[in-house]
């Protein structure tokens, strides 16, 4: 019986779970939470560099879902877009607060239980993390969703409430910025040369 229930929750779509949740089904809420919380948490963590903020964001997102889940309109996009839309607002607010309070503005150090033991690897990760965090928020969002959360451009566009073309152009620009920060100067020079049509071999 329990197994059947679990199977039902595994196979149910987000929309179905939300519908059941709104009618008071606790297990449906728990299933939806377990399915989506990690993605929301990582999005907030990679956007802000703060585990505390990421935790708060997850809590706020799902609290909003509990309180206002009935206002979700499937015509406006999938449940994930609804969740990431709320998360995005909270992250932006959190980043704004952190920026105003100088003490919190620096990204937190890597957690002690980080499995990375190789120092060089850890340093590389830290530098990529710093480069991602240095991106303007609208570019950072597309990098986090498309590159780190591996959403396709359509899903990212739904989550961000913008056109697919906008996501593509932001992603392209963001990758250029990251390349400029992370790759050696010689390589960056080659990047700038590469877009000159005059050097093109037809």
């Amino acid at each position, binding site marked *: 019986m329990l197994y059947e229930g679990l199977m039902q929750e595994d196979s149910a779509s987000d929309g179905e779970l939300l519908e059941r949740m709104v009618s008071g089904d606790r297990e449906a809420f728990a299933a939806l939470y377990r399915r989506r919380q990690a993605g929301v948490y*990582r999005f907030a963590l990679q956007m802000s560099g703060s585990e505390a903020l990421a935790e708060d964001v997850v809590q706020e997102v799902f609290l909003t879902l509990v309180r206002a889940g009935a206002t979700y309109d499937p015509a406006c996009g999938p449940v994930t877009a609804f969740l990431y839309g709320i998360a995005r607002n909270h992250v932006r607010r959190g980043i704004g607060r952190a920026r105003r309070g100088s003490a919190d503005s620096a990204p937190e150090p890597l957690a002690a239980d980080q499995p990375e033991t190789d120092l060089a690897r850890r340093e590389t990760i830290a530098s990529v993390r710093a480069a991602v965090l240095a991106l303007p928020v609208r570019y950072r969002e597309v990098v986090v969703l498309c590159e780190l959360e591996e959403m396709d451009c359509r899903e990212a566009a739904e989550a961000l409430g913008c056109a697919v073309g906008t996501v593509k152009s932001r992603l392209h620009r963001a990758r250029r910025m990251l390349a400029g920060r992370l790759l050696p100067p010689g390589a960056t020079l080659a*990047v700038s040369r590469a877009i000159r*049509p005059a050097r093109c071999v037809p």
Partner: protein
Amino acid sequence: MNCGEFEALVGDLARGRGPEESARRAATAHARECAGCSSRLVEERELEGLLGLFASSVAGKAAPPKVEAALLDAFARQYALPSVRRHWLAFPRWAFVGAAAVALVVGAAWFLRPPTGVAPPLVARRPIVAPVAVPEAPAAPVVQRAAQPRLKRPPHRQVAATQFYPLTPVDAGAQIQGGTIVRIGMPRRALASFGLPFDPDDSGGAVEAEVVLDGDTGMARAIRFVGRRQ
């Protein structure tokens, strides 16, 4: 394919997503022939590797279990509420603010509506409040106008002054000691509030009233209507 077209595809090419097989083959062929685009593809792949490394560093991260416990608790509290209240809570806050604003505007419009001539005539009622004893007018200093050139005012159509009606609760038979009497204009409709007769067809005008202000606090204590303001 030229470098511009290659540049549009290079991100997808490095990530192994997106372009169709034919476009992929054309881009790869272009990169073999163009040194700049070739190094651009190498850099994109390098960047992809770095981002992949970063993504893997947070791959297993998730919110701690205490968050789930708190949320399930909040869920139980929320759904323990009666469904009607829950429905109200589901409305966004701006909906309540909007509803309040609409109610305010409608209320103000109703209050300030122009008088209509079709209202049934009000029947004169007895005063709804007990009259209050007020010292004779000379005892209270009336607001003096200093020696100003007297403007010729249109003659009042005099109506008999009413008794004073208390505006604040007073003990029966109590007298207001001291104070000031000021004369003000009020809409004629106000007469109805004190149970005094007035003609609804002629309710647009104003009446003059005398208000007794408390000498200590300045609060309006009593009012009487003394005539019609032209």
